[in-house]
């Protein structure tokens, strides 16, 4: 058992840390305040090779380990949660299903551009009536001989306003329920496809979260991803991996909150003492750090299992459940230690708290994670 990144992996994280300090952290508050998608950061990360860390070099990726990719999601989130989910939605939810289920032609056409970061990717599963109950898909895909026609809509789609490619799910046989769902690769310029309204959110406000609308959208026959009617499996396995990235995002947010709180409490003086000298501060922060480290080990274990091609669905669920709830708890307690200043937008603490909340909701709520874990335990 080894709890260290390899020297190469650590080098990548150090490189990214430097970049984040100079390019990501300085704009984090601004993109939150103005709800601006950090498009320039996408292109800069692409230049460095950070948009497809774990994909093979022959498909435009950097050819590094999955564990390294998870470290990247965590490091980005330490500086800006919006930037972290931009990368993880792109990499975990769009690149991955194409790399895993795509034909050689699909990989050549899409993965090379996505993994190099030239294109941005997104994933469309959720619908107004199909959230946790993802099987209730209303979007339909009709076989028209030489092409598919998609009709319906998707909501809460991360990266939507800037993505070039979407992995989208639709019913190809309504009578079969989850066994009648298929996955498709949709380009933003396909006729009949458009990106709808931008959601105004509580946190990760710079993230481009929009509706997708399909009105007789024409999708070429060869853009079916994976086998016909096997799309539900594509969606579920994709989300298994996505959860590790979201768990890493939660870790980054929580660690940033702790680090900033440590710094603040060592400067803030009340009752003639630095508030870090009070035992309440010390014990609270010690508890929080222990909790975040426990979450980190769960997330890294899940990442290692995925990398080693071992079953990881339950490990990812445990990691995401624990890390996201830890992030919400820790950011709330950090804000309490900072007090009134923490509640103002002059400081990042309230942003950490708002950003942390989403990690308990997207890519499977905490309740879904509990379903996955108890199912794996055989508790029925």
């Amino acid at each position, binding site marked *: 058992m080894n709890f260290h990144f390899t020297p190469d992996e650590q080098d990548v994280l150090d490189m990214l840390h430097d970049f984040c300090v100079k390019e990501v952290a300085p704009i984090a508050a601004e993109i939150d305040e103005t709800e601006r998608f950090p498009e320039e950061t996408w292109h800069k990360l692409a230049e460095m*090779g950070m948009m497809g860390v774990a994909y093979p070099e022959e498909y435009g990726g950097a050819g590094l380990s999955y564990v390294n990719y998870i470290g990247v999601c965590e490091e980005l989130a330490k500086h800006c949660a919006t930037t972290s989910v931009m990368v993880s939605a792109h990499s975990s939810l769009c690149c991955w299903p194409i790399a895993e289920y795509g034909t050689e032609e699909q990989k050549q056409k899409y993965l090379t551009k996505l993994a190099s970061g030239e294109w941005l990717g997104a994933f469309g599963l959720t619908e107004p009536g199909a959230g946790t109950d993802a099987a209730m898909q209303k979007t339909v895909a009709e076989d028209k001989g030489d092409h598919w026609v998609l009709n319906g809509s998707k909501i809460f789609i991360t990266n939507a306003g800037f993505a070039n490619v979407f992995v989208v799910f639709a019913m190809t046989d309504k009578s079969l329920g989850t066994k009648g769902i298929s996955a498709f690769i949709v380009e933003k310029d396909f006729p009949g496809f458009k990106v709808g309204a931008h959601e105004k959110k509580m946190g990760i406000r710079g993230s481009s979260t929009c509706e997708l609308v399909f009105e007789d959208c024409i999708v070429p026959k060869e853009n079916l991803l994976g086998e016909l009617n096997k799309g539900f499996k594509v969606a579920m396995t994709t989300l298994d991996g996505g959860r590790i990235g979201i768990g890493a995002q939660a870790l980054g947010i929580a660690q940033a909150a702790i680090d900033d709180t440590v710094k603040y409490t060592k400067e803030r003086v009340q009752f003639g003492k630095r508030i870090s000298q009070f035992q309440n501060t010390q014990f609270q922060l010690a508890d929080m750090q222990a909790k975040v480290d426990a979450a980190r080990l769960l997330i890294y274990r899940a990442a290692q299992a995925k990398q080693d091609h071992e079953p990881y669905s339950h490990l990812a669920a445990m990691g995401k459940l624990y890390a996201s709830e830890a992030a919400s708890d820790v950011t709330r307690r950090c804000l309490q230690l900072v007090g009134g200043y923490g509640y103002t937008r002059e400081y990042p603490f309230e942003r950490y708290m708002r950003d942390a909340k989403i990690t308990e909701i997207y890519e499977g709520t905490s309740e879904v994670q509990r379903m996955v874990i108890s199912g794996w335990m055989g508790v029925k």
Partner: protein
Amino acid sequence: MNMLVCVKQVPDTTEIKIDPVKNTLIREGVPSIVNPFDGYALEAAARIKDKDPSAKIVVLSMGPEQAKAALKECLAIAADKAYLVSDRAFGGSDTLATSYIISETIKKVEELEGKFDVIFCGKQAIDGDTAQVGPEIAEHLNYPQVTYGLEAEVDGDVIKVKKEVEEGVEVIAAKMPAVVTFTKPAWDPRYPTIKRKMAANRAEIPTLTAADLPTIDLTHAGLKGSPTKVKKTFVPQKKTGGVKIKEETAEDSAKKLFQLLSDASII
């Protein structure tokens, strides 16, 4: 286009603390970095290479074995090849000896990499702050030199350099081969890429020693080849307070200043 960039590994002076008792620098735990001005020189070379992808960038550093870390950083950013020159006989070199050793090394590296059209350096290192080594390399090699460069552009057989001067910017053309030293431009150097970083981690960097430099005269190298001797280093005393003169009018301020200087018997 064949370019050489000279770099120095320096302690990150923003992280340096001074031992309050011994009055010396605390070097332990201080990270080493590529001298930032050398980073600007590398970026200037990289920008030339952006326009002419057939161009080659070689980096050279003089220093101990650990300076290879700085060379690897340069490889991760933009350099194609790297060389370290290192020998016990070079220890204690001042700027004159250092620039002599580097100019002798350049002749050797040129045997391996071909003649350099330009030699780029930072204007100075942030640890010594002398700004002498670059210009002295030009003198040893008998090359034209342009100092305080901001940007450089190749135009036929000349290098055109935007040079920072007090009043603004001069554009100076120098016939190649030439030496250019760089100061901080308006832009930041590029970031390393993952691909280059991994390749740099695996790169073998040759170390050249005095024995590899057949024409070197060792009486001009190291401590005994250095006319400059450091007698003592100390932390300058912190200046105390002072008086701020800010009267209602400039004339009143001048009068007050005159009075103060007069009272102190300075004038």
